[in-house]
């Protein structure tokens, strides 16, 4: 492996196949190439397949159906020691949408059954009776200048037990709406967000942040700066979305 290589492990792409989230992997590739990195993407297709944690810089889990949380938890349990080490080292894992539940303490299903998660994120997920879909904008807790926008299709509500939120809501439901205005969760560099879009397509600045962190984790500081014009479409998109949200919010207030 060369120093300028970014190694992405794309977990269960066919099983976690919702909401066009494969676009997140495309976005990581695009931004990494803008940073003049060579990108290697390794797919983990089946539950029994081995994950090469040592040669992974970003481990990615896209959004999937809630029913697959349990088999994924079981699959990762068999790799727990390596996964523990990976997380302890501060290496990056990203889980989108309901897949965040894999790393939670537990998920309570509508039928009352409980699915135990891996427990890395100190949070509980509760399956909703009805789906909720809306726009979502939040500000990162560890980088207050960075706003993330997208949408969410909420099948689970998430209650955080500790101050581990990834961000603070600007608009939308986030983890649980008005309860604590939190969005997502973060422990070391294990990140969960409800944000769809795909989130890294709509927010390439966040993809860049993750990539820089991933490279720093292996002692490589990227000097290359990306020309601001490269993200012009995404910035203009966010302006349009904000105008749309302002308009709908004021119409809702008028009743």
């Amino acid at each position, binding site marked *: 492996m060369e120093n300028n290589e970014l190694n992405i492990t794309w977990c269960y792409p066919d*099983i976690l196949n919702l909401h066009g989230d494969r676009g997140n992997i495309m976005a990581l590739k695009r931004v990494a190439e803008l940073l003049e990195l060579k990108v290697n993407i390794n797919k983990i*297709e089946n539950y029994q397949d081995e994950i090469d944690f040592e040669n992974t810089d970003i481990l990615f889990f896209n959004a999937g159906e809630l029913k697959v949380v349990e088999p994924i938890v079981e699959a990762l349990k068999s790799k727990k020691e390596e996964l523990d080490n990976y997380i302890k080292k501060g290496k990056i894992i990203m889980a989108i949408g309901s897949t965040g539940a894999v790393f939670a303490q537990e998920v309570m299903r509508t039928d009352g059954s409980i699915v135990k998660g891996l427990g890395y994120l100190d949070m509980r997920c509760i399956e909703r009776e009805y789906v909720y879909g809306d726009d979502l904008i939040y500000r990162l807790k560890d980088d207050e200048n960075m706003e993330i926008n997208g949408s969410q299709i909420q099948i689970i509500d998430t209650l955080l037990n500790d101050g581990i939120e990834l961000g603070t809501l600007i608009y939308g439901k986030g983890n649980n709406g008005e309860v604590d205005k939190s969005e997502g969760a973060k422990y070391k560099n294990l990140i969960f967000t409800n944000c769809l879009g795909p989130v890294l397509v709509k927010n390439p600045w966040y993809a860049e942040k993750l990539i820089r962190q991933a490279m720093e984790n292996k002692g490589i500081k990227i000097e290359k700066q990306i020309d601001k014009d490269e993200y012009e*479409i995404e910035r203009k*998109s966010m302006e349009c979305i904000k105008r749309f949200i302002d308009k*709908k919010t004021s119409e809702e207030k008028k009743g």
Partner: protein
Amino acid sequence: MNIKRIKFLIALYIGKILVFLTRLISKERGTNIPGAYANKIQKDFINGFRGINYDKVIFITGTNGKSTTNNIIVHTLRTAGKTVATNLEGANLIGGIATALIKNSTLTGNMKTECMCFEIDERSFARIYEYLPAKNICITNLQKDQVQRNGEPDYIYQKLKKVINPSMTLYLNNEEPRAKSFEDMGCKVFYYGVEKNETSFEKNDFFDVSLPCPKCNDKIKFNYYNIDNVGNFTCTGCNFKSEEKPNFEIKNINFKTNEFECDGKKYKVPYSQPFFMYNYALCIAICQKFQIPADQIQKAFSTFKNISGRLETIHYGSKEIKYIRIKQENPETLQSAFDYIARDSNPKIFMLGLEQLVDFKPYYTNTFYSFDCNVNKLIESNIERYICFSEAVAYDSANRLIYAGVDKNKISILPTDSDEEILKELDKYDCNNVYLVTWLHKYEELIKDVAKIKKAGGKDGK
């Protein structure tokens, strides 16, 4: 006569009056309102109809293909001399079903038709079945659709699973994993499908994905596809797979002469798009149940006209704008639209208006389903100019194309819903071959505005 019967008859009469009145105003409006009103008067109104042979009641449900399949089956049954109550106009909620019963019953609530054939909204299936327990259930496919209401395909899958029971006969798509997996519910099952043919394809792009197995949750591998996400499949984790010999399989398709074989008989058909083949297969399966001979099926196919088509044309000056309708938040219909356009290799302008979603509150700006679609064939089909419009999501729509490799400079991005501005942009380009993909309501706005321009004497109006 008991009170319940009296209440039913009151609801029926009011329903019949509303059918008459709504027909005076608009034919389209009369498809749901009378039944919805009757259901309000009596919750189990549908239960009150008499003379129903449930063995001759057919429900067609699934994400895509319900309307067209319903149209073909009803046309074929009627051509064969059967009387059929139906909801051809697409009113597939409980109000639409009740309206169809009101229209096809006597003043005492006795059904006048021998059979019933309804397309049923997947979400409403359980509620409708409670009052009208059909014995013949057709499941076309269960795919991603309207995520703001449905979330994920498994949400609808579980709802249907609660209702499917051994008293039913199931007609299942052999090449769509979720539909086929209902085979385990203890019902009598008929499989229908389409043989590998010259339009079948494989997906070998690095970013292509399939789906989790509905039985064991491991990866489903498609050996080939006949249409997007439908084709011969095998699960990589269990022994679930397409039947090698489905009961009704369309074979030896000749796309030039529009002919195929099924169950040893030859047919010639008016429409030969690959997705239609599944509709014909299901129709032939249902016809066997009703003992309709092949020559009568052929007679019906020869005269079939697809009233639920999704293609319209707007003439705007020298430009011919071909509009392809897509369903909201439904990647399969968006992919079909892309594939349709890709088959035209002539120079063209492509207009994409994915639009903000305003059917349900909260309104929102989802375009992520466009990343479920493959755009490669589309962008290789000689598109001279792309125009992406929409007040909120024009940039996101454009970005999907850029991710597929389209040069930014070839895309006009219009963050507006103003038809005046959209048409002004279109006027800048000489190419007359134009394709438009957007929601139905946007298309309807556009045809009104084009008509106004023509009325005022512009763009070749008189």
